[in-house]
């Protein structure tokens, strides 16, 4: 059985037919070919699949595509505006906030949400805010720095 959904992703409207079992992460990756959203665990633990849905950061591996019907979604691919990188993207590069890059889209989307709610967080607030995202490469050191620098330039 296929179900019809209408979603807005990165400012573009899509109408798709999906199976009821399809996760939103799989929909973004396999149907819309937006492979910047990564899947690291399927259980909402690692945060690699974090996107923004209706203004909130969510883990797209544990939301069904059909649940996203009618929603407005931003993925890592939609964060740059008019070819200009989002301050967080530049800050992650500037501060070496990534190594293998796999957790990075989820980290940046989580950080974007964090800074939208709390534009000038303390180090502790940043570390706490990243609790739902794993990075195995960086020891989080430069991720925290990247977010601090992005917040300073706010």
């Amino acid at each position, binding site marked *: 059985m296929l179900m019809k959904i209408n979603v807005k992703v990165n400012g573009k409207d899509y109408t798709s037919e999906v199976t009821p079992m399809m996760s939103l992460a799989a929909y973004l990756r*396999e149907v819309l070919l937006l492979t910047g959203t990564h899947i690291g665990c399927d259980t909402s633990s690692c945060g690699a699949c974090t996107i923004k849905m209706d203004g909130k950061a969510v883990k797209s591996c544990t939301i069904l595509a059909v649940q996203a019907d009618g929603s407005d979604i931003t993925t*890592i691919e939609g964060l740059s505006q008019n070819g200009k990188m989002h301050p967080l993207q530049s800050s992650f590069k500037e501060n070496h906030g990534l190594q293998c890059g796999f957790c990075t*889209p989820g980290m940046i989307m989580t950080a974007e949400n964090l800074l939208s709610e709390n534009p000038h967080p303390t180090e502790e607030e940043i*570390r706490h805010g990243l609790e739902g995202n794993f990075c195995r490469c*960086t020891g*989080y*050191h430069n991720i925290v720095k990247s977010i601090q620098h992005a917040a300073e330039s706010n």
Partner: protein
Amino acid sequence: MSNYIGQSIKRREDDRFITGKGKYTDDIVLPKMTHLAFVRSPYAHAKINSIDTKAALAHPGVVAVYTGEDCGNFGVPCGWQVNFKNGDTMKEPTHPLLAVGKAKHVGENVVAIIAETLQDARDAAELVEVDYEELPAVTNPNAAIQPGAPQVHDDIPNNVVFDFALGNPKEEVDAAIDGANHVTKLDFKNQRLAPNAIEPRSYIADYDVTVDKYTLYTSTQNPHLIRLLMCAFVLGLPEHKVRVISHDVGGGFGSKIYHYTEEALVTWASKQIGRPIKWTSDRSEAFLTDAHGRDYVTTAEMGFDNNGKIVAFRVHSDANLGAYLSTFSTACPTYLHATLAQGCYTTPLINIDVTATFTNTNPVDAYRGAGRPEMTYMIEHLMDTAALEMKIDPVELRKINFIPAFDGVNQPGYQTQVALQYDSGDYHATLDRALEMVGYDQFRKDQEEARKNGKLLGIGFSTYIEACGIAPSAVVGSLGARAGLYESAHVRVQPTGSVSVFTGSHSHGQGHETSYAQFVADTLGIPMENVDIIHGDTNEVAFGMGTYGSRSLAVGGSAIMKSLDKILEKGAKIAAHKLEAAVEDLEYAEGKWTVKGTDKSIAFGDVSLTAYVPHDYPEGLEPGLDFSSFYDPANFTYPFGTHIAIVEIDKDTGKVTLKRFIACDDVGNVINPMIVEGQIHGGVAQGVGQALLEGVDYDENGQMITGSFMDYAMPRADDFPFFETDRKVTPCPHNPLGVKGAGEAGAIGSTPAVANAVMDAISHLGIKDIQMPITSERVWKAMNS
């Protein structure tokens, strides 16, 4: 120009990663691609009486179903042969692509289902009926060798893979321990770890019948090694018919070195069905089947004289290799482990004795550090424990025992008691700098004050050394490696002077595209923008050995330097011809050859154009400017350093909080300090993770009870403070860049520093030791028993 080395150049690969345009294996979609799902053994040890796949085959969308009977003749090999002490060859059972007869660990592949969609494949997997007869299981390496233990492989008695010893004669070491003024003895359980790269393993095989060729896209650290092992030792395919591509890889830490059964299976099956097949591990499968790390049960003793000098070091370990031998598994508790037993100290007598065992658990192999963290943990934890016991300051105890500084040029390398010869080192230098950074004297005062106020503060030290940059082929060959460990580099200067560098090493987070371009651009005196670094495709790159053992720059970088030397040597001949001068009269700097003492010069780009448009050209010289090299190192490299941890322990809950972490490392020369620091940070985080949080546990039936991120405690951002890092530089004397490698240092040095800090905080309460991971529960129990 010409000053990139030593600068923290921002990484060029980041642009694709931060915009979501990285190209990981699972991102690839091929036309007509099918999907594979496994039925995996739910038992640690079970006889497979029968498998009924009829219902699965009949499920809509299913393309094919395979069992061990279909591909049971194929098995993945072990890449390193270790012999028994008596010279017999190690026990090496077949590791089938799908279980044959018996399943030997939870998660072992039993049935493969290929379908149009992943959901179809998974649904059909539910319909497979396997008749298992559960057998008793053994999971502990020491229990495995006791009489009457369950037999993992029916034809391998006592589950012994091999026994092994290295060092001085045992009776001499025993006598020295017996005669020592003080002996510190500890039992260790260096726990099993899950590597947990955030990108799960992913493979896509694509057999093209029109040319009878295979393409395997794989998340590996070493595409050529995979091709060689799979073609020559598993499927019997000619290598020129197989292309292995490894684009972006989301972390490895060792776990993506090995040739896995799933890799060979998708490749084999792709030909059977004539269509591409994708398999991507989910996290549960990753916990169950990505090769684990560590897992030793050990007793170690260190003897001291009455001046605190170490007189002998004796170790016996039982090392758990799991149910089958993974690619480098046998090297980990032996030649990557026992060879580090000298540490940074002048210990005159050492004996390391290891029994490697099969158990009904997932295979164990190299995980960041591979054998070296386990040895370093023993030595460094014994040092701080001995210091406490002998009431000597742990810093003082180290200084008494350090090998004096040697640069490997004016002073010879240091010959250890355990085969290796250290290249260069200055262990006092990193310790002194780390002490300065931490403010040691002040800390001891603060600690005393804190205790008066009922707070538990502790400081722990680790002055580690490691052997990396693996390795001289002849040396590792003599120790059992079934491969050489050189590296390849092909430098192709394009006619207009831009440069493509093809390296056999592989980047999966290390930033080679940037750091390699830095030293290539500097050596040639051209802008970095004119240099591209290409890796991860066996059709583009000459046979290379890949990235692990902190070897990329030390071995791969050296290979590139060899090719650059050849480029400049040939370029000089062309330049001399054009400038009508003798080669000896030229000097090369800033991207041009100049006749010494004149203003006559010719630029690199003009020489390269001449090489490809050789109208006015030296007689007898071949056109083109394009060189390949293989570099086989003269020795391992020996980075070292001092790590210091400060922890605070909550008296009521036992929770250990890492307050500060100081690392002063010496990894030789540094091309990109930002990248090196990042490597240290990541390594430290993994080492701290082992000390305080992580551990794979199996229950008595062999069920993994830590098989998800909910059960396995991965370090999170709020488990760490900012790390405080600095470096000293003792160049490697035997490679052209003077580099030693930085990938594993953090994971090797940090673990004992943290454990030592915990003991420093609570040993005055009468607690002798706590096994890792040092969780709140364990600390609380120790404080309340």
